């Protein structure tokens, strides 16, 4: 364990949000001159000048409300005592924040608040962490003159939410929670019900929190200035005593958090206001669903077994490492170097991933290393490299605030990337137009104060047809940004693309029947995007997990280049990455054909650099991808695998094939937190570390490298990179690092886009977006601003080729899969938290017409069968999906959704086609596991 890292945590609340004006005004606060952007509130200006004006309803994450009347000030030359939170500074203004008149007013206000508030400060769970308590002290309140009368002291508690409590008796009706739910989260689940004395905070229509529209993001808890809305952990354990800044390990948004502890016991995770990705917001997973880290299922001692049908035997680290190394060496001797391989994990840090791929290439002497991005965003890597020159999204998250039109394709941000979803919704409420391309009617299509201008509800598998049709309209209507194309793109490739896309076969009218989207809808959407001003595309796995995933990524890139929507704020092509470190795992050389920084293994310059540093000859031919390794295992040529933090026996498609391959191997090494589906086929189990125990970095979907700091020591005693290094050494190749910072130093030395990155720089700046090097020492929020990474943008023709997976008489429905807000991927983490109250099992959503035809009622058990297999789950009748399409999640091993997904995959990358499986359903009388 390294020495504790002390990072300054800035938690001063300036009262109101920053004004964005570029002009400034100078005001005098109690005689001190302060220059602030025009539009800054007096409260914020005073705070910046070092004077904290008392406040209760104000906080700098929310627009000023002006209701508590505690922040009154005197302004020279003006009558009355205006609220400093709602009064903007004006040039030359002279403000007094502390006078006898103000003291008296504030004390009177506080007296009224306290007259209807429990006087139980010493035993209150917020004792020491309560703004009401603080303000009573600040204004010098010593007594309350009012006699006991009508009050709210007997108001009942709402304990329905598993993570926080709502104690109405302590509510001062400041509306901070209501405003947080509306302005920050954008859910509008809370309101102030009734009027006057009867006013009270109400979830939905006076429902319990759990029964309301509340999504448990925690914004209301964060905003509450009293003990009214409070984490149950704080109520149970007490107020935290120390803090560590770190990064969430769920989705690709990569939110920064402050872990607050008592000793080594984590009390709560509070979103960090300084976090570049989340700016103080969170979702239910990052904020609350971290209890899995100390779940009793955690395996913290290494285990080995001779065969997969024998019992696990706990051993010490040296024995486990020696056991794995001996088996791997035996395989090498008998079957050759290419009989071994590894899978790196997007849940692990850059440093942990880097050492695994290094071990494979340098120690195991093969390029058989792949990563879980194979099954999610590998087409993004392929497609964006071909067109733009690098395998990454183009924007920072803040860019969406400048978008005039937002096109969301095959993504469901409010569920899968909720904190970014809230940011997007904020922009949509400000008036940006929204186009949704998705077979499902996701929440964004219609939610409070948001309505998609166009929803292209296409048939699964027809993405390329629809985007080609959009491009056809833009090209044939003369909406191409010719100046951008001529200046920034390869003109010959553009001309070829224009000829192709203008063909009648790509017209909306020709593709309407195939895609299921009316031609006029496509023409309308094309006009909206082409004439947007700033048009931004955000996409997810609904784009990549198709047989034409890579083609679709290139089709979107063509669209953006043709309309000049690249290289500035508010535009771009933005992959919403599924896992916390998908971007990083790909950057770190996890693919079998690439070193870190996306340099092909056949690139002699790159290979010589690595050979020189690592001191070994390296292979120049690509290694096997995950499906190739599995195929080779069944053929008997691939015999051993190191699997870092992945559960391929639940997450990968066509599970019968996956499990047959795992069964055929002589040595499977699993490094993970829990025994999982894959470990059933393992011979060695190496306990991993939760994100709270890791020391390293994650890189999020906007290429932002964030520090992951150890909050508690590793439960197993070793960091994961230490375990990998130990195995490498036992295999005969030493990888010596004193700490994770040294690994990052090697990454920076060997990876051009990371050249300027170090732990010291990250500690100093908070985070940084690659490329970070001599040309961009402060990182690169927006890529391709002056020129594309490859020089000129490359247009690529994108013919629509239908998938082989089609509905048939035997399997007439098309299944598409996805994930929901409260659960995460295979559920290994979230199933071990109270998030199960929202989603305890996978459920199949089916249109009413399809259900009725098959005699299925809402809640019925059904059997879902495809050509690959069958499973059972409950049905839910939903109008979010069109007739002919069914939808489910893959969070639970009991239902094992991937039993029914097939071996179809993207033509260029082998990313599985999870999003299209032909199935049939029928009523089933009993629950059973996947077959």
């Amino acid at each position, binding site marked *: 364990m390294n020495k504790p890292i002390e990072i300054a945590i800035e938690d001063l609340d300036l009262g109101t949000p920053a004004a964005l004006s570029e002009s400034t005004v100078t005001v005098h606060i109690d005689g001190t001159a302060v220059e602030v952007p025009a539009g800054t509130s007096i409260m914020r200006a005073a705070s910046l000048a070092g004077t904290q004006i008392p406040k209760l309803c104000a906080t700098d994450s929310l627009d000023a409300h002006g209701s508590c009347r505690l922040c009154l000030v005197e302004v020279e030359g003006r009558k009355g005592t205006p609220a400093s939170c709602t009064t903007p500074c004006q040039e030359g203004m002279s403000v007094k924040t502390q006078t006898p008149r103000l003291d008296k007013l504030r004390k009177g206000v506080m007296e009224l608040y306290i007259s209807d508030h429990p006087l139980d400060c010493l035993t209150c769970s917020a004792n020491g962490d309560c703004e009401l308590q603080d303000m009573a002290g600040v204004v010098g309140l010593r007594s309350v003159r009012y006699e006991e009368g009508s009050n709210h002291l007997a108001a009942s508690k709402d304990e329905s939410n598993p993570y926080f409590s709502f104690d109405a008796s302590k509510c001062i009706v400041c509306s901070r929670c209501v405003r947080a739910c509306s302005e920050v989260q954008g859910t509008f689940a809370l309101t102030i019900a009734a009027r006057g004395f009867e006013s009270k905070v109400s979830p939905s229509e006076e429902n319990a929190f759990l029964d309301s529209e509340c999504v448990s993001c925690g914004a209301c808890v964060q905003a509450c200035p009293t003990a009214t809305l409070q984490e149950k952990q704080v109520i149970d354990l007490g107020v935290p005593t120390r803090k560590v800044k770190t990064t969430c390990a769920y989705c690709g948004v990569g939110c920064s958090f402050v872990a607050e502890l008592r000793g080594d016991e984590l009390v709560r995770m509070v979103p960090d206001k300084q976090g570049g990705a989340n700016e103080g917001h969170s979702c239910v997973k990052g904020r609350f669903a971290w209890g899995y880290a100390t779940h009793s299922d955690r395996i913290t001692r290494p285990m080995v077994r001779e065969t997969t049908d024998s019992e696990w035997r706990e051993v010490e680290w040296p024995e486990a490492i020696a056991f794995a190394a001996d088996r791997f060496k035996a395989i090498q001797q008998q079957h050759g170097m290419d009989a071994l391989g590894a899978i790196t994990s997007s849940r692990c840090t850059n440093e942990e991933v880097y050492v695994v791929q290094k071990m494979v290439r340098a120690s195991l002497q093969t*390029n058989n290393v792949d990563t879980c991005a194979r099954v999610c965003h590998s087409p993004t890597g392929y497609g964006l490299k071909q067109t733009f020159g690098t395998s990454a999204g183009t924007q920072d998250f803040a860019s969406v605030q400048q978008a005039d039109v937002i096109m969301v394709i095959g993504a469901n941000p409010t569920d899968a990337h909720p904190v970014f979803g809230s940011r997007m919704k904020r922009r949509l409420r400000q008036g940006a137009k929204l186009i949704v391309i998705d077979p499902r009617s996701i929440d964004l299509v219609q939610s409070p104060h948001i309505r998609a201008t166009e929803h292209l509800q296409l048939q699964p598998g027809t993405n390329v047809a629809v985007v080609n049709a959009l491009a056809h309209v833009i090209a044939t209507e003369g909406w191409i940004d010719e100046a951008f194309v001529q200046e920034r793109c390869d003109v010959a490739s553009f001309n070829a693309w224009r000829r192709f896309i203008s063909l009648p076969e790509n017209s909306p009218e020709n593709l309407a029947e195939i895609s299921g989207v009316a031609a006029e809808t496509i023409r309308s959407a094309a006009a909206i995007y082409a004439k947007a001003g700033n048009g931004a595309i955000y996409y997810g796995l609904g784009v990549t997990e198709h047989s034409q995933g890579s083609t679709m990524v290139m089709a979107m890139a063509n669209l953006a280049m043709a309309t000049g929507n690249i290289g500035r704020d508010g535009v771009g092509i933005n992959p919403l990455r599924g896992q916390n470190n998908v971007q990083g795992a790909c950057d770190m050389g996890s693919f079998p054909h690439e070193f870190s920084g996306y340099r092909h293994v056949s690139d002699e310059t790159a290979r010589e650099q690595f050979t020189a540093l690592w001191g070994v000859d390296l292979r120049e031919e*690509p290694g096997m991808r995950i499906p190739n390794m599995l195929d080779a295992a069944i053929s008997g*040529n691939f015999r051993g695998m190191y699997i870092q933090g992945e559960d391929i026996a639940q997450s990968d498609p066509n599970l019968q094939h996956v499990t047959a391959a795992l069964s055929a191997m002589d040595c499977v090494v699993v490094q993970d937190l829990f025994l999982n589906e894959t470990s059933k086929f393992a011979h060695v189990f190496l306990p991993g570390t939760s994100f709270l125990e890791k020391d390293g970095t994650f890189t999020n979907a906007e290429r932002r490298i964030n520090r992951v700091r150890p909050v508690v020591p590793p439960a197993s005693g070793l960091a994961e990179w230490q375990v990998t290094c130990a195995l490498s050494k036992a295999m005969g190749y030493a990888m010596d690092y004193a700490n994770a910072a040294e690994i990052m130093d090697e990454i920076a030395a060997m990876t051009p886009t990371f050249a300027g990155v170090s732990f010291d720089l990250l500690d100093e700046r908070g985070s940084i977006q690659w490329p970070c090097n001599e040309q961009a020492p402060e990182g690169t929020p927006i890529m391709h601003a002056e020129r594309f990474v490859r020089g000129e943008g490359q247009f690529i023709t994108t013919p629509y080729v239908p998938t082989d997976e089609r509905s048939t008489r035997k399997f007439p429905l098309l299944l598409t899969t996805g994930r929901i807000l409260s659960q995460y991927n295979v559920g290994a983490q979230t199933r071990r938290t109270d998030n199960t109250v929202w989603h305890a099992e996978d459920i199949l959503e089916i249109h009413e017409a399809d259900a009725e035809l098959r005699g299925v009622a809402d809640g019925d058990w059904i059997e879902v069968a495809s050509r690959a297999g069958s499973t059972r789950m409950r049905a839910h009748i939903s109008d979010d999906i069109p007739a002919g399409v069914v939808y489910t999640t893959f969070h639970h091993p009991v239902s094992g959704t991937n039993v029914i997904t097939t071996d179809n995959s993207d*033509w260029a990358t082998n990313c599985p086609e999870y999003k299209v499986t032909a199935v049939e359903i029928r009523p089933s009388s009993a629950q059973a596991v996947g077959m």
Partner: protein
Amino acid sequence: MTLDYSQQHLIKMANQIAGNMPSRENVPAQIVQHMAQFWTPPMRADLKQLAEQLPDSLNGEVLAALALEG
């Protein structure tokens, strides 16, 4: 000749690459380049063997690509 899963998959992958190659100009050369970038030498060798044994199972452009490789 009975094909095992791995052989079936190789044939499917190769045909899919040929069918989806974006530019329709000189597809065989593009297939060669794609396979050199992303396929291991044993996979390429296995495909070549399959092409000799079961040429009808492969797209003509895949066969042309394998012929280019020599």
